[in-house]
């Protein structure tokens, strides 16, 4: 079986961002067919004093080992993918994500996450977002289960 060795993740150029949040709107359009953004967007732009930060899944895949029903898998393109049909809504992945990038909207019980689809990149009028390719082995992490650390 073909196994992904690389994955595309989002890179953010804070200097270019103006905080227009069109990326969030594009993202919620993908996940919930709405332009609401915010809680319904997998990418979040957090602004403070005209300085912006991006908050989004980095595809490390720590959540893969959390799913009791196998709803989370790494797809052929390397992206960590949540299958809504298999998911039983336990929120283990949400609770254990070290950067809180597995999102949960009030709209449904199953969480959602960035799938590196690039719609936020296309939507950004300032070219502040880019998808860059990373080697999975360089970024992957496994869930904690060591004794005495």
């Amino acid at each position: 079986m073909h196994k992904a060795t690389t994955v595309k993740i989002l890179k953010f150029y804070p200097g270019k961002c103006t905080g227009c949040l069109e990326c969030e709107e594009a993202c919620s359009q993908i996940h919930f067919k709405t332009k609401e953004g915010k809680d319904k967007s997998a990418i979040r732009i957090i602004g403070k004093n005209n300085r912006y930060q991006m908050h989004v899944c980095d595809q490390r895949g720590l959540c893969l080992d959390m799913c009791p029903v196998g709803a989370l898998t790494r797809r052929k393109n390397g992206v960590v993918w949540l299958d809504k049909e298999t998911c039983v809504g336990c929120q283990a992945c949400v609770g254990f994500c070290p950067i809180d990038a597995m999102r949960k909207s009030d709209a449904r019980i199953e969480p959602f996450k960035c799938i590196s689809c690039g719609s936020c990149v296309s939507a950004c009028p300032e070219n502040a977002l880019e998808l860059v390719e990373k080697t999975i082995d360089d970024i992957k992490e496994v869930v904690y289960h060591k004794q005495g650390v």
Partner: protein
Amino acid sequence: MVEGQIPTEDYRTGNTKHTWDTKKMRAAHKILVEYEFKKEDIKRGYANRTLYVNLSTGVIKDKPVTDEMKKKFTGGRGFGLKLLWDSIKPTTRWNSEENELIITTGPLCGTTQYAGSGKSLCLSISPSTDIICDSNVGGFFGPYLKFAGFDAIEIQGKAKEDVIIVVDGEKRKVTIETAPDEETDSHLLNEQLTHMYASEDTDKSRQKVSVVSAGRGAEHSFWGCLNFSFYDIRRKVPRMKQAGRGGLGTVLRDKKIKAIVAKVERFDGVSNNPADPLTLVKVGTKLHQEIRDLDRYQCNMRTVGTGHLVEIMDEYDLLPIENYRFGSFPKASKIYSPHFYKLFTKVIPDGCWHGCTMACAKTVDGFTVLTGPYKGQKVTVDGPEYETIGCGSNMGLWDPLWILEFNFYCDTYGLDTISTGTAIAFYMEMYEYGILNKERCNDLELCFSNAEAALEFIHRIARGNKGEFIQVASKGVRRVKDWLIKKGWGDRQLIEDTGMESKGLEYSEYVTKESLAMQGGYGFTLKGPQHDEAWLIFMDMVNNAIPTFEDKAEALHYFPMWRTWFGLNGLCKLPWNDVEPSNNAETDEPAKVPEHVQNYVDFQNAVTGWNVDKEELILQSERCYNWQRAMNVWLGKGTRKDDWIPYRSVGPVTEMEYVSRKERYDEQLVDKLGLSEKDVEKMDTKEKMKILYEYRRDQYQKLADAVYYRRGWTPNGVPTPQKMKQLGMDDSKMLTMLQKKIDDDEKAGLNAWGSKYKKGEKPPGDDQRYWETW
């Protein structure tokens, strides 16, 4: 190998593979009864009906769950008590036709967002105790039973030949089928039935099937447990959790049930149709995060499960060694959790129900079996948990591999590791004293640390060996005590004091000698000596937080009620206090973990749509707790004499025990009994032991006085009609029965304090008939 991020299909256990023709096996089934039921949605945690199956008559029907029933009994174990009360008689024993085996769920059971929400509660009249035994267990069966459409399954009568009961939530059918060709031992049978009843040949399909079974050991002993399966999509085996205590597997096999299968078509995170799913997610995610951040610094549950307790118990002199003679031992370091950590496979998640991130269910894959019928095969062993490792130290087994062997065979034979281990430890001590010997043990050299003999003993039970010793010994400590005394092989007092049972049930694995409150925690339980009602050792012995009888009685009221609550709802107790918020120590009552109590208030309200507070949770428990005690009275037990505990759990029985902790005991004679140091020095050990014996026995009776008083019972331990009415439990048959018992006790002079209070000592109340003025 990188541990983790292994695609589910790629993980290999290395276990011995079996090839069975499950189609052919299934074709050999004869369907005896078939019952179709309508699909009904779960409403706010309740399926609103229970399933009744009678194996003698072939009747299958559903019974409605009324609002009245929910109000009085909440669900889970409470429903089980109600169903038993309606079905059995005071003369019913474990193997009576009318005895029932009940598996219940509870309104919160099946929730996936909050860790530990998949417990089933099993009830029956126990072969060991002749009263109700309730046993809680993980695995997928309970949630699947509910999602198939039933809050409980109630099985009465006996089949003529081996049958399986299938609750098929997909086809909406319940069937009773013969099952002539399947294996009986659980690790094989569960695998066969999981494959047989999965709708498709996929792991996801197999994960939607759960099996309850008990192996051959359950047929021939009083220690039968129920193995509840949960299919692991990574290991590709149906793993198991046990409803261990009280011989419920023995009841299952006596009814000629080989297995019960539950199956669902699909379910999701809101299959309970909770009133407020957003709050569930909020509270559940908060707990996941707490476990993520704190477990590694607190209990290490995710890493080694409850096994982390072994080193702590050994350090505090609480780990049972050689039939509870000692609480710590140098060799115990060989079975500390790091040794098991090396053997556990690190494939997360390990919860016994979806969404349990506490994940204490640890597993050894590819374990090579050392003895018996499966010798040489490679198998998955679920566990060992703390109690099973504690059985190891109790029998003097200091090799983790032998503990795994013991664990594997107990599970697959359907034997409760706790009762089996505690009983063998007692037999080993009797062997050491020559009360038992090779000849009396049917050629088994059952001395401490003889792992081969212990395993051979278990194999013989499974084979149904007819030797006198095996026949008696497989029925437990109480029967062996009577047998040894009848044979005149040893001193009656020594035998009674050392055999660790109360009410006929074997003790679980804690040494309670230095904690009076915990002696009560074992003694004043409903079903027998099990730590699921209260675990007060640290509070009492280490922190000295409950110094007076009144304090101890309050703890022995609150904690049993609180812990009972989990069983009414289909929950596991561990996520309550085996992880604590980081600021817990600064709260008013850290032992209660107030923030988590509030979580449970929010949890129950979010599922059921009720508006309860924490006091109401305790009331829910009090109703059922008192009801169960009253049923014990009805069944002929449930009084002070039945709350008797063996002296081994109270103080040093033998001189060796006294001498091994001489400083401690000598000091107590001075500090607590007011003897002078000089006098103590002059006394011989026997004399000192006698004084200590009388003192500690009396302390226990004083504690009973205080606890009964606090719980609203008579001084003989009988729940009063006044108390029952206060709780809204107004069943007139029950109230009349209790009043009659209290009147009889009055005539027999039993409504009196158990201790003689000396000058300066005060009984709990001034009026001995206190309950009448309520």
